[in-house]
């Protein structure tokens, strides 16, 4: 009689254990998946940030070659990223003023970062 009671308890325990373990493993897999997604987003964000800095430096380097009123263009390409400047068409500013530029970089996943810089004619 006592043995039969023990058998019943063990079965319930096993079922409970399996359920709890399954829920735990499910949660762990979900957590790992979330961490993976967050890691990818982080990597993309860092890459976009690096491209943004490179683009800003390329823009400032191009400005250092400026003479007032000349056409201003930035030779910059980054595979998988789209870069843009606003205003789109810029001439070198006169030596008595700075030109504000809004830079934007869009990463492979569509995330866009923006930043404002100023350039001047040396």
């Amino acid at each position, binding site marked *: 009689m*006592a*043995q039969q009671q*023990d058998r019943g*308890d*063990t079965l319930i*325990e*096993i079922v*409970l*254990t399996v359920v*709890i*373990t399954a829920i*735990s*493993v499910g*949660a*762990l897999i979900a*957590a*790992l998946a*979330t*961490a993976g997604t*967050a*890691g990818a987003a*982080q990597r993309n*964000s*860092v890459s976009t*940030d690096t491209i*943004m*800095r490179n683009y*800003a430096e390329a823009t*400032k380097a191009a400005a250092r070659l400026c003479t007032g009123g000349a056409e201003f263009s930035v030779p910059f390409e980054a595979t998988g990223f789209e870069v843009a400047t606003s205003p789109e068409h810029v001439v070198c500013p006169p*030596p*008595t*003023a*700075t030109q*504000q530029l809004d830079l934007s970089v869009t990463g492979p996943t569509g995330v866009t*970062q923006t*930043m*404002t*810089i*100023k*350039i*001047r004619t*040396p």
Partner: protein
Amino acid sequence: MNEVTHRHEDRGAALILAVAFVVMIGTIGAGLAALVTSSVNNRGALEKVRDRQYAADGAIEDAIVQVRLAATSGSDTCASNSGVSRTPSINSSDIRVDWRSACGVVRSAEGLVLVQRDVIFSACLDTNVACTDASIIIRAQVNFEQAASGAVTKTYVQSWSMNQ
């Protein structure tokens, strides 16, 4: 009897193991959550630093133009040797630039003594107090090439250091 006692001692063992397993999984999950949160926070902080650095960079460019204008118009000489320039918000940062002249003389190949007009610019967040060594974001030294008329013909960046 002994066998029955043993079985009674084992009762609940699986549940305890399962609870321990849940605790272990929970700890791992919490660790992962902390890692992700920390990464996201760091990312945001680094973006703020980048934006602030380029805001300071732009503010110094503005200050250089102002000093250039003052020198060209003759309202500023090496003797009048300091000033403050404030730039409206760039990248959500208000920047203040303190500048002071660091003029010197050099002797040319022809034996002429020439004045070198150098200016040191210090950019920091604008808190209505002068920039200090601890608060400076960018420090730059710029040489202003001037014609005999006083007009600045070109500027040369001699140093440009990012401090934070």
